[in-house]
């Protein structure tokens, strides 16, 4: 496996391998609780806590865990931290706990967390694992807050509870309903793809290609049927 620098370990999760935006992991909480910024933030932080805690522990204990029960053991560790987080939130900020509902408990099954244990923490020294967990957790929180911001601004006309447009604003209720979650993330991904496609190197490549084919068509005087770029079997 390719070696990575410490900086990379941390930054990777924030952007290049952002769990939500790039890897599409942990989507359930990312969509379910992001109807406002406050909840998103709370969820992000709770997840960050669990992720760091369990990465730390998994990385510490990696030698003692037999391969066959690896998953069960990771889950046990994660679940412990989740229970701790659940109880603490309930004690400290009961209102937010109520708003997040079952999704605090569901951090246990956030694929992202288990994924980090499997792919990273279980094979790295503690420091590395912790950095990675911090990065990934931060990336997750950032994505959640982005989603939450869009949904709250459009769906309630406010940001962190502060009204932005005055009382006669017509909220787009759909944004805080389930379709709004899918939609916001979908649009975010479209924007991301668009942005990436506009990066100079890509533009050049695609222009070159297109120029070729278009000329071909123009020169041969072919009037009809542009063809779609073929999808080869396994799209998606």
């Amino acid at each position, binding site marked *: 496996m390719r070696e990575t620098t410490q900086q990379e370990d941390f930054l990777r999760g924030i952007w290049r391998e952002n769990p939500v935006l790039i890897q599409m992991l942990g989507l359930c909480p990312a969509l379910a609780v992001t109807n406002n910024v406050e909840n998103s933030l709370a969820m992000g932080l709770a997840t960050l806590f669990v992720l760091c805690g369990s990465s730390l522990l998994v990385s510490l204990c990696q030698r003692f865990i037999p391969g066959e029960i690896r998953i069960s053991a990771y889950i046990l560790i994660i679940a412990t931290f989740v229970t701790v987080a659940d109880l603490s939130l309930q004690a400290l900020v009961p209102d937010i706990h109520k708003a997040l509902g079952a999704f605090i408990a569901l951090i246990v099954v956030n*694929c992202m967390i288990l994924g980090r244990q499997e792919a990273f923490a279980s094979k790295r020294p503690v420091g590395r694992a912790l950095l990675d967990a911090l990065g990934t957790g931060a990336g997750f929180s950032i994505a959640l807050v982005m989603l939450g911001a869009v949904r709250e601004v459009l769906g309630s006309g406010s940001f962190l509870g502060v009204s932005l447009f005055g009382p006669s604003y017509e909220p787009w209720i759909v944004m805080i309903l389930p379709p709004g979650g899918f939609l916001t993330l979908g649009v975010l991904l479209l924007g991301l793809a668009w942005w990436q496609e506009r990066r100079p190197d890509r533009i050049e490549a695609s222009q070159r290609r297109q120029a070729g084919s278009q000329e071909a068509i123009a020169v041969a005087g072919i009037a009809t049927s542009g063809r779609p770029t073929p999808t080869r079997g396994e799209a998606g």
Partner: protein
Amino acid sequence: MSELSWIFLSAMVVNNFTLALFLGLCPFMGVSARVETALRMGAANIFVLVLTSLTVSFLNAFILERAPYLRIISFIVVIASLVQIVETVIKKVSPTLFRELGIYLPLITTNCAILGLAIFQTNRDYNVFEGLAFALGAGFGLTLALVLMASIREETELADVPSIARGMGLVLIIAASLSMGFMGFAGLLSST
């Protein structure tokens, strides 16, 4: 009886686990490229959900009565272990099935739908039968969403989708559309 059917329908269409409650999205995104696989994943999910529901009823009744704070952890450990056992068995019995669902079999364990079912069932104090209706509704709802999504995705594979929408962007927008469609079922059987 009508209570049971409401639970079933509510979990299946009104509050569809995937499209309205956002549970089990990872497999929904990952395993919905082919109708075939989607159906299998759905079947596997129904199976695990029912298994979970029974397990949870049992745990709640006999073990966790005294220690409700151990719910999350016990549920997940028990479910994860059960699925892992099932997985090991399937790997042996039907390698093809195993390959088809590949990495997602273990992911069923770490699928929000499963634990979500356990938690909702507990919070709502469902008895065994209500729990089963709930699990079946949730399972069929998941399967429905998966299969719809898969058949649409197969269709769009032949379409001239703009490059920026290829992949998950389009999938999410389809999910949003489906989710809006399912809003039509809101209030089903409760409006009188």
